[in-house]
């Protein structure tokens, strides 16, 4: 599965959760995203957060915080004197339920992005950088490449200082470790720059953007800004203006990226599975946007069961697509995953 497909999946799932704000749908997305994350995890994923512990913490804190702050609702558990600043007043079940529902949204966002981070490797994420930002792409690649080297350097300096009897007791003792690290890093930057210049980096490309591109970038940005502001008054016309601005900026980035020819070593092919991924990821969002009225859940003023629309609920299950496809892909062509694992360490 290509990283582009995953990005669409992530954006769509996150937008669905943020727009709907209803615990039933949120739980569906949460479970779908978690299953996808477990099934599609790379073998060399950096590390996994303990989601159960963090999730419990988020839910408990947001419920507690909301009960502490909100004193609205009918099912009163107990009361504190009303003249206590902020925390005085009745403590209600409704406030706790709303806090839980908020915490669930935050937790689901966390799970969605954890899935992205475990399923897609760092180098593939870097490749998503628009080609127009090629120099910053190089900066990121240098940084990602040198990070393990820097960590190793740090360890070596610490060992060398320890041999001389240096021990880290306070903050001041970090000076003989961090300053050599910095100077060594800058020395390396000098040699990297010389190597890049020797290979002709920056010699031919004209860094300055053409005038009309700059002008249109500004126009696109103003459209996004205006659309954002307008959406608060008028709703959908603002969305349209914002969307037009985003499309304009994306087109300009594409145009700028074409100025520099660029080759890629062993590209991952776009298959029909990727098309399927994009379609199944966008579909639930469209269904939500069409019938949004009544989807949102609020326990105030009196506790009630959240509404459930089977169509929306079923459509959210489409977020399971990568989890379903992954085993099929593996069975059909075990070589592909192997080669890709080699090409993108």
């Amino acid at each position, binding site marked *: 599965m290509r990283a582009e497909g995953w990005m669409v999946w992530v954006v769509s799932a996150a937008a669905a959760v943020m727009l709907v704000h209803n615990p039933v749908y949120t739980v569906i997305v949460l479970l779908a995203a978690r299953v996808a994350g477990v099934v599609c995890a790379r073998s060399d994923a950096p590390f996994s957060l303990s989601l159960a512990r963090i999730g419990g913490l988020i839910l408990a804190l947001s419920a507690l915080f909301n009960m502490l702050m909100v004193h609205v609702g009918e099912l009163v558990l107990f009361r504190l004197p009303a003249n206590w600043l902020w925390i005085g007043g009745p403590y209600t079940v409704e406030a706790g339920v709303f806090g839980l529902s908020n915490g669930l949204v935050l937790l689901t966002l966390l799970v969605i992005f954890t899935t992205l981070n475990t399923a897609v490797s760092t180098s593939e994420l870097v490749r998503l950088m628009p080609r127009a930002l090629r120099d910053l792409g190089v900066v990121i690649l240098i940084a990602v490449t040198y990070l393990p080297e820097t960590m190793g350097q740090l360890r070596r300096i610490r060992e060398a200082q320890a041999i001389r009897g240096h021990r880290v007791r306070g903050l001041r003792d970090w000076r003989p470790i961090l300053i050599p690290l910095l100077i060594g890093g800058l020395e390396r930057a000098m040699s990297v720059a010389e190597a890049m210049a020797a290979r002709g980096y920056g010699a031919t490309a004209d860094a300055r953007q053409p005038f009309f591109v*700059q002008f249109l970038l500004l126009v696109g940005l103003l459209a996004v800004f205006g659309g954002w502001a307008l959406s608060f008054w008028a709703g959908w016309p603002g969305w349209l203006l*914002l969307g037009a601005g985003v499309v304009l900026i994306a087109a300009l980035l594409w145009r700028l990226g074409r100025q520099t020819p660029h080759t890629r070593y062993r590209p991952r092919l776009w298959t029909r599975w990727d098309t399927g991924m994009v379609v199944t990821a966008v579909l639930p969002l469209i269904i939500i946007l069409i019938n949004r009225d009544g989807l949102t859940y609020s326990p105030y003023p009196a506790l009630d069961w959240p509404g459930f629309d089977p169509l929306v609920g079923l459509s959210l299950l489409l977020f399971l697509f990568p989890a379903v496809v992954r085993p099929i892909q593996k069975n059909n062509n075990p070589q592909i995953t192997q080669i890709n694992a080699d090409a993108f360490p």
Partner: protein
Amino acid sequence: MTTRLLNALIYLTTALIGVAAFAYPFVLPELAGANADAHAADAPVLTVILLAAGLVVLLVEVQGQAVSAKVVAALGVLTAVTAALRFIEVFFPVPGGFSPIFAPIILAGYVFGSRFGFLLGAMALLVSALVTGMVGPWLPYQMFTAGWVGLTAGWLPHPQNRRLQIILLAAFGVVWGILFGAIMNLYFWPFVVDGSATSWQPGTGWRDGLSRYAAFYLLTSLVWDIGRAGGNALFIAVLGAPTVRALIRFRDRFQFQQG
């Protein structure tokens, strides 16, 4: 001349977008009135899009201004060093939200100028998010804010007196330690739309919004942020002087232009 003007306009627009994206919870209710209620749920989604668009345009613009093999290499390596510091934060005996990532951004922005500082701030946050697997909707906000830390560090006066310089930088670290927390809180604050005394309520005035936010901040984040502010000051006080010396020596070798 017109290009200059266009550059200035782009910088101005992105700065306005940054301010608007962080400040809309306070200003919006008064401006939009009753309509604000109906669209409150969309606001966080749209704001992430707005901020990401502003960030991309700004990065394209700054990149066009500041590109050369030396700048790219120095940025890449310094980003790696800064991101590596994030892994050793457990070693520092400072409690709370301290992260040693800010001190190098401040010092590099101070020595190499605000453009370099902005790029280093944004890139350092991006790379450490990529490496630790913490990419999320909060990332554009973090990149924008950390970029501002480096950007504003370049605006500081450069006194001759070394001691004065370090005191100035340490104070700057304290200010941004608090400010970073206050700004980053605004990212999730509108999510907590629950009508409480300390949460964002669409349909109230900005004064009211601000006082609610102050209460929210005092209750939830101040202790954490004081840890970060103190850590920044301590880090700069102990390590700032030799770092600035090393950076200045390399600036002369790199032949950076200041500004």
